């Protein structure tokens, strides 16, 4: 127990000291995870909504594959990206392996199925009711589809926060394709692994605290962007 308390104290001191190395690692983490989230959201939200709203051939199969990939092990995502970006791989000529770009690619692979699958689910959950209401009030198909997406925004925000949670906590994929290179591809999670292996427990705890604060701050920020989600976060009254 003493080790943990001591580690926490030293960790907080480390956060307080604003170590330039830690700041640099934090910035790389943010750059990688937020870029991956943004790209995955730009692809996943429209595709998930379209799959929920339109009956197209192969829709069910695609959704089932998406749901399966929601549980994709990070190290496997890393391996797939590694094989594509390695010098002998199809995109080897671009020499992206062991760069933040490779890490972003691996994280997109992890975040996209979550965002796409959960968006599809949340849109499907209410499409008929909202569609009928919108259409009977004179909405065109496009306007009704937009109304469905608008009404699904709580679920879409939940999809984004779930994906972000997975990205910031992920270590396997970024380690494999990033290589944990100091000053370049080292991120908070890979730093924790490294510091622990080197016996620097307090440093690992300090980085862990930073990781938690970042996760919490981003999730609060996303929720604040959609003020109503807080309003509707009130629990069910059980008496």
């Amino acid at each position, binding site marked *: 127990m003493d080790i943990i308390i001591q580690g926490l104290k030293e960790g907080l001191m480390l956060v307080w000291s604003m170590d330039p190395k830690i700041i640099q690692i934090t910035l790389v983490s943010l750059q990688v995870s937020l870029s991956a989230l943004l790209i995955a959201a730009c692809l996943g939200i429209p595709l998930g909504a379209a799959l929920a709203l339109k009956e197209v051939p192969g829709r069910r199969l695609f959704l089932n594959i998406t749901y399966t990939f929601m549980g994709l092990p990070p190290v496997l995502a890393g391996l797939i990206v590694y094989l594509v970006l390695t010098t002998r791989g199809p995109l080897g000529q671009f020499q992206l392996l062991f760069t933040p770009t490779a890490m972003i690619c691996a994280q997109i692979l992890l975040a996209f199925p979550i965002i796409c699958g959960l968006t599809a689910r949340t849109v499907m959950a209410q499409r008929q*009711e*909202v569609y*009928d*209401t*919108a*259409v*009977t*009030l*004179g*909405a*065109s*198909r496009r*306007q009704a589809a937009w*109304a469905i997406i*608008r*009404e699904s925004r709580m679920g879409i925000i939940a999809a984004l926060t779930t994906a972000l949670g997975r990205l910031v906590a992920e270590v396997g994929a970024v380690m494999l394709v990033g290589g944990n290179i100091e000053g370049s591809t080292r991120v908070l999670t890979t730093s924790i692994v490294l510091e622990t292996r080197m016996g620097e427990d307090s440093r690992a705890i300090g980085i862990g605290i930073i990781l938690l604060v970042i996760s919490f701050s981003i999730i609060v920020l996303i929720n604040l962007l959609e003020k*109503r989600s807080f309003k509707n976060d009130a629990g069910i009254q059980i008496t």
Partner: protein
Amino acid sequence: MTPVFKLHKIIKRYGQREVLHIEEINIHGQKICAILGPNGSGKTTLMRIMGLLTRNDTGTVNILGEDIHWGKEQLLKLRRQMTMVTQTSFMFEGNVYDNVAYGLKIRRMPERGIRAAVEKSLELLGMSAFIAADARNLSGGERQKVAIARALAVEPRVLFLDEPTANIDPQSAVEIERHVRFINRELGTTIILVTHNLFQARRLADEVFFMWDGKMVERGSAKDIFEQPQDERTRSFLSGETVF
């Protein structure tokens, strides 16, 4: 006078099951028409076809003088002349104003006109005080009144009411009936009321269509149907017998 709705040899199936088989229906405007019948008799399916929400498998539908070919533009044009209120009206996230304004906003009406129309509709339903209230926190009766105000704001020629008072208390139901009568008499809106509430149909309807097992078994004035029903099934239903 051209009927508002003219349906001819309409059949609707879900899988192998035929849920609706209508030979002929003509409904003229500015009346309150009740579609009456037990659960599963095809009332809602008929209303959804008339409201252009469900496509019939065979037969022809003519609405407001136009034969329906289910083209995008025609659907939009005709749907914008009809609105619907169901027994559990969905409220969009937002306040009462946002909900009542929805139909006007999608018609790209100027903001000043929207506010005036919303206030007028809410006033008509006695709901002006709720304009800023969260629409999802309303009681069942209030929610139905907002749904009717929302439907009226777009000044429809036809208003469909699908069991509009099924889930609300008797006092609110009486109030809603009063509004329905007013909307029909004063605004000239044609009202299609789908219900299995005999008393409500009797109080409100000018004309009654009685349905049983997907077919229209009897139609006539409310007085004739309730006082001298011709069909055995109508008589049994009205007397509350359990032959069904």
